[in-house]
């Protein structure tokens, strides 16, 4: 029964992983494009927030010390909205785990001879790709709004390498957030429960990530924000998005790119491990 050579073993285990990962990702994308309303929810709301908050807070916004001269609130908010889109897409794609369980689809996947890691990675890859597609749409649409007077000029001057680095980093953030959503959905048996956790945990996590307002230099809020792993995701994105900020001095509000990358990788690793651990257990919650 055991494969005779290690070569065969390697080939078998590769196909044991990539085929399920591919098919679960494919299903995720197919379902998404069949439900157009999901796109509106995950992209439309952040876009509207960006324009409305940008207009409303223009007067009262005080640019932080590290910001280039004359930074408007809308410019400041831009990376935060990108992360918000990623967060929303991650949530919407993982909440489907609860629906899959209720509709019976999940148990069909669970009895298949698929390594549980492949199952997790398939779902996460699907969610991450969707998040990147949505974020990319925003990165294209957002700057175009300056031509209708709804946004300031963002002064994009990214090189091709700069774009790649930014998308790469954003993928890491998206993967971590999708894994976080996955772990939550896996442990909950109703979408209502998920929505509750979203309002008291995920939204505050985003609000306190430096997306919406800068990290203060001191006080309890400063500490909460410094301990929030997503703060490093937003800061890293900020540095990668604007060439002016790439070399800005390191502060609590704007950590170095290296620490942003390290914290985001750690965040990603922890959430993926949690997702794998939860999936590995045979649990009564998954039967119906």
């Amino acid at each position: 029964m055991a494969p005779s050579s290690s070569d065969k073993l390697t080939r078998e285990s590769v196909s044991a992983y990539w085929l399920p990962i591919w098919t679960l990702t494919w299903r995720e994308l197919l379902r998404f494009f069949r439900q157009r309303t999901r796109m509106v929810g995950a992209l439309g709301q952040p876009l509207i927030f960006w324009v409305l908050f940008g207009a409303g807070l223009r007067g009262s916004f005080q640019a932080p010390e590290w910001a280039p001269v004359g930074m408007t609130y809308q410019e400041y908010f831009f990376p935060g909205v990108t992360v918000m889109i990623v967060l929303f897409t991650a949530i919407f794609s993982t909440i489907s785990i609860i629906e899959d369980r209720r509709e019976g689809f999940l148990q069909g996947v669970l009895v298949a001879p698929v390594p549980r890691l492949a199952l997790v990675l398939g779902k996460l890859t699907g969610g991450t790709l969707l998040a990147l597609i949505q974020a990319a749409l925003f990165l294209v649409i957002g700057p175009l709004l300056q031509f209708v007077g709804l946004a300031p000029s963002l002064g994009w001057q990214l090189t091709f390498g700069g774009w790649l680095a930014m998308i790469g980093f954003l993928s890491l953030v998206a993967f971590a957030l999708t894994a976080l959503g996955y772990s939550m959905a896996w442990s909950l048996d109703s979408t209502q429960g998920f929505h509750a956790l979203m309002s008291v945990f995920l939204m505050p996590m985003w609000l306190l990530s430096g997306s919406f307002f800068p990290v203060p230099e001191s006080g309890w809020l400063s500490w909460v924000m410094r301990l929030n792993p997503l703060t490093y995701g937003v800061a890293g994105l900020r540095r990668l998005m604007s060439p002016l900020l790439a070399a800005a001095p390191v502060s609590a509000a704007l950590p170095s790119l290296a620490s942003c990358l390290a914290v985001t990788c750690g965040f990603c690793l922890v959430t993926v491990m949690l997702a794998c651990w939860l999936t590995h257990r045979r649990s009564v919650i998954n039967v119906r």
Partner: protein
Amino acid sequence: MTAIRIEELSHAYGERQALGGVAFEIRHGEIFGVLGPNGGGKTTLFRVLSTLLPIQSGRVTVLGFDVAASASEVRRRIGVTFQAPSLDRRLTVRENLVHQGHLYGLSGRMLADRIEDRLAKLGLSDRQHTLVNSLSGGLQRRAEIAKGMLHDPELLLLDEPSTGLDPGARHDLWRYLLQLRDENGVTVVVTTHLMEEAEKCDRLGLLDRGKLVALGTPAELRAEIGGDCLTILAEEPAQLSQRIAERFGIEPKLFGQSLRIEQARGHELLRDLVEAFPDEITSVSLGKPSLEDVFIAKTGHRFWEEEGAGEK
């Protein structure tokens, strides 16, 4: 040869004991029916066999592999058909099958051929590009069965496969299961609460309140309660029961408005009863014992009265 060996299997959901020390074997190449009322424990057994639930106590081997220790070996070899369809309702029938094939490591030409074959066998070829959502319940079930059969499993587990099928489709399903057994040597395990379906199985296990109360072929089980079965309807069944006991020295069993007597040479007793109590008896019927009679004899209660009680 043994396909499934179950040893002292117990399972509880919190306080509620669903299986209490069940032990039996399923042979290779047979159609085995797990018969029992809702809440009797058959779905729990199905979930343990299909590797969905952990084994709390006891031991189960499927096709020689321990379900607790070698889940992926078991998963590779079994096909599972759920009571609640496990299809993605937003995908077409074919897309569901492609997805299933990929999960089981099938791809390319081989997968395409398998899909064509299963679709044809289950009469779904012309619906393959329909979204599952817009299929009727019966067609969804057929698609579910096609899904479970796609990777040529050695053993097929079906949970209440006839649910939602009309009589014609039910007939086709059983013809297909018999064909799998005869031509491919597939072992088939079905759970059911339908007596007519149980009759078609090679062997049966009767599950009631988490215990195995009987095991054998349908004919063996019927033979165990002997002879014929008389069912008597009466205005005053309790009173009649007492008088029959006094006069003939047999103890009828009382169920609601009816009395039941299991007796060899039942036709003679029927004649004597009607002569003795012409006014008290409303109607009387004589038959070979059914599986329902077996169930009643083994458990002391009717098949259906447990429903609801088991849900609590």
